[in-house]
């Protein structure tokens, strides 16, 4: 098992945000997490990242609890994903260089590897010399994905990574992401508020649903069939509507979702 979230509760100043979240994610899965704004999707991601710690319960990645973020999880946030002072190539090679140790540094080798990853994500050698502010939003996220994947993390966490992109670029990035996931076999946890994106990308869709009485969120594993971008549009629309209705209400149809909390 890649990620194990056990009975997790998160409270901020006596306000409970997450309430008894249980979640098991197997290695190689692509899990989409959906939910309304403020339901705690990003909080759950930060817990897996070990940037935050639960008030109760525990979160294990690769079988161990961690005190802070490390190389176990790659991370692609919505914004500020690249280091502005470094060129695109230096951004992608950064992880390799910083982990190589002072005496084992082989910049040329690392840069060649970085260039290979950049090409793989659809960027050219000319782009490699640019600074992040000289790239479009879509290109920046391509670099961010290459930067994370070059370290071959067992888990890749993406927090609304494509939210700021225009629809065309977003579709391209979704296809690229799915392709990279298939090739790398990395476990991906993808937080999004876009249901279509969640359904088309994820092999599994988890909804964080606000409990009407308590205001805190619980996790529901929506047992939806996995669809692809080329699936029948009618079937896709029907499924999106079902997911959306299930992820905003607690009194969902029993056939639609299976709660993964006790």
């Amino acid at each position, binding site marked *: 098992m890649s990620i194990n979230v056990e009975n997790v509760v998160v409270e901020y100043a006596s306000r409970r945000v997450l309430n008894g979240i249980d979640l098991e994610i197997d290695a190689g899965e692509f899990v989409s997490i959906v939910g309304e704004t403020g339901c705690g999707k990003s909080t759950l991601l930060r817990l897996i990242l070990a*940037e935050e710690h639960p008030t109760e319960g525990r979160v294990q990645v690769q079988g161990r609890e961690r005190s802070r973020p490390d*190389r176990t999880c790659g991370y692609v*946030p919505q914004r500020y994903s690249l*280091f502005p*002072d470094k060129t695109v190539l230096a951004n992608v090679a950064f992880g390799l260089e*910083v982990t190589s140790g002072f005496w084992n540094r082989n910049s040329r080798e690392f840069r060649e590897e970085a260039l290979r990853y950049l090409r793989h994500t659809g960027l050219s050698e000319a782009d490699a010399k640019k600074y992040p502010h000289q790239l479009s939003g879509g290109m920046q996220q391509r670099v961010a994905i290459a930067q*994370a994947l070059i*370290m071959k993390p067992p888990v890749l966490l993406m927090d609304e990574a494509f939210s700021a992109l225009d629809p065309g670029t977003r579709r391209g990035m979704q296809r690229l992401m799915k392709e990279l996931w298939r090739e790398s076999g990395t476990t991906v946890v993808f937080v999004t508020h876009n249901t279509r994106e969640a359904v088309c990308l994820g092999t599994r869709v988890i909804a964080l649903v606000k409990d009407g009485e308590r205001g805190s969120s619980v996790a529901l594993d929506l047992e939806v069939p996995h669809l692809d971008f080329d699936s029948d549009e009618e079937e896709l629309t029907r499924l999106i509507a079902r997911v959306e209705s299930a992820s905003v209400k607690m009194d969902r149809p029993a056939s639609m979702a299976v709660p993964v909390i006790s």
Partner: protein
Amino acid sequence: MSFFRIDTQPARIPAWVLSWFLFAAGITAYFYAAEQRHRENPDDRVMPTVTQMVRAFQDAAAKPAEGQEVQEAPQSLIQRVRGSMLATDTLATARRFLISVALLFPAVLLGLHMAMFPYMGAFFLRFFQFFDKIVALSLLPILFIAFGIDELSKIMLIVIGVAPTIILDTVNLTKSVPREQIVKGFTLGAGDFAITYRIVLKQIFPRVLNSIRLNLKAVMLFLFAGEMIASTDGLAYRIALLRRHMGMDTILPYALWVALLLFAVDLGMSTLNKKLHPWFQE
């Protein structure tokens, strides 16, 4: 012309005229007033004429100060300029100024560590927040007692006066680096110090240089205070000395010379900042 419209852009020539207008008006007003005073009293020393100032500045730039040894052997122009009152004073002030500015860089590192390492922040932050409010000039007598009236006390005055501001500014700049960048660093395998120096310091450095640029005047202010009170050379020492003799014909060019030097340092730092950090957008 829409002087009070916020959605307007001055054309090139009006913008140029406007930006130089106050300089021209100031110079004209001065020379008009000086002319008037000299018409009433040809020996007026409060507002010297251009000729008087040019002559005094030429003397300062080519002759040694009164009381200094005069070389008997004929000297080249460069040798005369090098031994002149202006050059001697400028070098003395520049040396103190550069040492003081160099000493601000450890302050930057301290601020960086205070913001990055919470225990260091807890240890130093409150102290420097309080220390920043102490008027450095009020400590001058203590500094003279503790460090003597030599160079050290003047440099300490500058450091005490400006360093807390630079430290607190660096703390704020460091804290403004998005959390995502630090988390990203961890996930790419960087440790605490790699994140501090290779991610955060590199990102804040252009802004730190700008902060030091903004504080150059404060550095000069404290330096002048120290030189005026206890020094035997330096630009401020000379101004204080000439004040006793009402030597306005030298004081005014000296004040302009100091402004010009500061302007040059500021321009140099700004150019260096752009060259070193081509990615920096501000």
